[in-house]
């Protein structure tokens, strides 16, 4: 059978041509409107891939509620791919999705069996998530059940390879909780979820990392992610996807654009292949198609503007060593990766700060230091005491927490108001 073009191959081809692929989050319940959103993405003045973001009912596998909403015309906050007939979705994508415009399904589910069955039935071959990253922050489901669900879905999805397709999965592990997770843990979870996808049959993956609070620390984290991917995933196709900041977003349009442009420079500076954008409406509501297109074009222009510049190599504060120590400690816990991951959370070898899920130990804590870097105030039982540099260890107060959560938005909004025409951060050039 002829190999088809795939999500991973498209992104790789654009990267070799020197173009950053940019992508929105986008989903509406009506197929005709969804098609218009995908076409708007495709026709943006940028190198784009399309997104179908699913609704919350489908995310929690409550398909009955999604069907009821379609019948009564109640607006959903995404595209209900399970509730729609596969023929409806195929027709919606006909003439929109092709080898030059791949489309990814984004969902957030720890119970994604129905979603994967529906996207395969609709002829799609790219999605994202992971057994940790779509369970701990967004679900009450026991981690053990999420592992089983995701293993089944990976195996089902990997079977698409028999048809000549190359199914692609992206880890969401580099975005845990959106903010205040120290980068070494984000990098470790992203790589571990990539390894999980490979273990259960995938051969084309992408590894996520969400922009945090300090551009130099982010650069070091992305360099560590690439190095670890080359070491641990050398036999699969992989690329890195950067997320524009996922925490509390700037409220001024200029502040929001500055943060997005910083994310685009971060991606280019660190040789990342793809960027998920945020819009100027992010602090207020779900963005419109037009706002998404504007964000795609802003990011593409910022990326083009700094392409080819020689960047100083990132510093080394021990982030790679910390992430590698975490990954190796987890892999040594059991002979099967899914068992290792469950055991790692039981023992607190993986412990996401401020995550309330019952299966998260909840002993590790983080803070933002004077330079804006995310650091550990407590590592709990994380096996990194030898490599981690711990802070003063004071517990965060409620007002400290609010200040930390809004650190980035305040910085960007203040800059937008005080120096509206200057770039926010001069990332170090050589």
């Amino acid at each position, binding site marked *: 059978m002829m190999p088809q073009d795939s999500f991973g191959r498209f992104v790789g081809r654009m990267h070799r041509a020197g173009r950053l692929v940019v992508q929105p989050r986008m989903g509406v319940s009506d197929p005709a409107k969804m098609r218009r959103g995908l076409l708007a993405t495709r026709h943006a003045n940028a190198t784009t891939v399309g997104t179908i973001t699913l609704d919350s009912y489908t995310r929690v596998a409550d398909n009955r509620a999604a069907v009821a909403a379609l019948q009564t015309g109640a607006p959903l906050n995404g595209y209900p791919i399970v509730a729609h007939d596969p023929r409806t979705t195929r027709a919606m994508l006909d003439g929109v999705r092709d080898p030059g415009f791949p489309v990814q399904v984004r969902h957030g589910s720890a119970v994604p069996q129905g979603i994967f069955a529906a996207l395969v039935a609709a002829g799609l071959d790219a999605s994202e998530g992971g057994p940790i990253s779509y369970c701990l*922050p*967004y*679900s009450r489901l026991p981690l053990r059940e999420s592992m089983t669900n995701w293993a089944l879905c990976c195996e089902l999805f990997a079977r698409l390879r028999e048809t000549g397709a190359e199914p692609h999965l992206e880890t969401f592990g580099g975005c845990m909780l959106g903010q205040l997770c120290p980068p070494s843990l984000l990098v470790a979870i992203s790589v571990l979820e990539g390894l999980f996808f490979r273990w259960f049959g995938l051969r084309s993956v992408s590894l996520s990392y969400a922009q945090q609070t300090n551009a130099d620390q982010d650069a070091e984290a992305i360099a560590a992610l690439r190095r670890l991917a080359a070491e641990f995933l050398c036999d699969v196709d992989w690329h890195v996807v950067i997320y524009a900041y996922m925490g509390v977003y700037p409220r001024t349009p200029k502040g929001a654009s500055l943060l997005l442009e910083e994310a685009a420079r971060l991606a280019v500076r660190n040789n990342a292949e793809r960027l998920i954008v945020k819009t100027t409406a992010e602090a207020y509501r779900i963005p419109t198609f037009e706002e998404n297109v504007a964000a795609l074009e802003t990011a593409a222009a910022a990326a083009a503007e700094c392409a080819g510049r020689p960047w100083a190599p990132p510093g080394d504060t021990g982030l790679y060593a910390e992430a590698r120590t975490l990954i190796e400690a987890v892999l040594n816990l059991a002979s099967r990766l899914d068992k290792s991951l469950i055991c790692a959370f039981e023992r607190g070898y993986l412990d996401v700060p*401020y995550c*309330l899920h019952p299966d998260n130990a909840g002993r590790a804590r983080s803070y933002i230091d004077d330079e804006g870097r995310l650091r550990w105030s407590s590592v709990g039982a994380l096996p990194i005491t030898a490599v981690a540099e711990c802070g003063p260890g004071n517990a965060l*107060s*409620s007002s400290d*927490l609010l200040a930390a*959560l809004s650190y980035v938005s305040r910085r960007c909004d203040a800059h937008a108001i005080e120096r509206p025409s200057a770039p926010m951060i001069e990332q170090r050039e050589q």
Partner: protein
Amino acid sequence: MLSTRLSTCRRHAVQRDADYGPEIVVSSLSSDSHTWNLIFLQLLLEELGHRVTNLGSCVPDDLLIAECERRRPCLIVLSSVNGHGYQEGLRIIHALRAVPALAATPVVIGGKLGTSGADPHLASALIDASFDAVFEDDAAGVLSFRSFVRALPVGTNA
């Protein structure tokens, strides 16, 4: 804060010693996966001297009711920021009030409760449905909430 129910303090005065423990239950509602709001509230309440049980995100109605019935908290704090807080708040308050042990427990709600910004009509409907107070998710709402908790007759030294 948008609204409070005047009868709250009276009910406290009558029932304080017999029915309330020092514990406060903080919870999201069934469709809301956000947690930073819950973590903030937990820290704030602990700073005010309370023991807090944080039930986390996406809490099904049955779980919330069972935990509150078992723990007999001195206050139930519901927080929602996904825009469904109004609909889900109306549903859960009826269910909580239907449990005899929780019929008079102070229950408050706050956050982004509707899909289109602050709306005083939503708050008054929630108060009518027997919430004790409704708080907006801004600095003034936090200050009002703090004053409300400080005025609770039990718990701070327990």
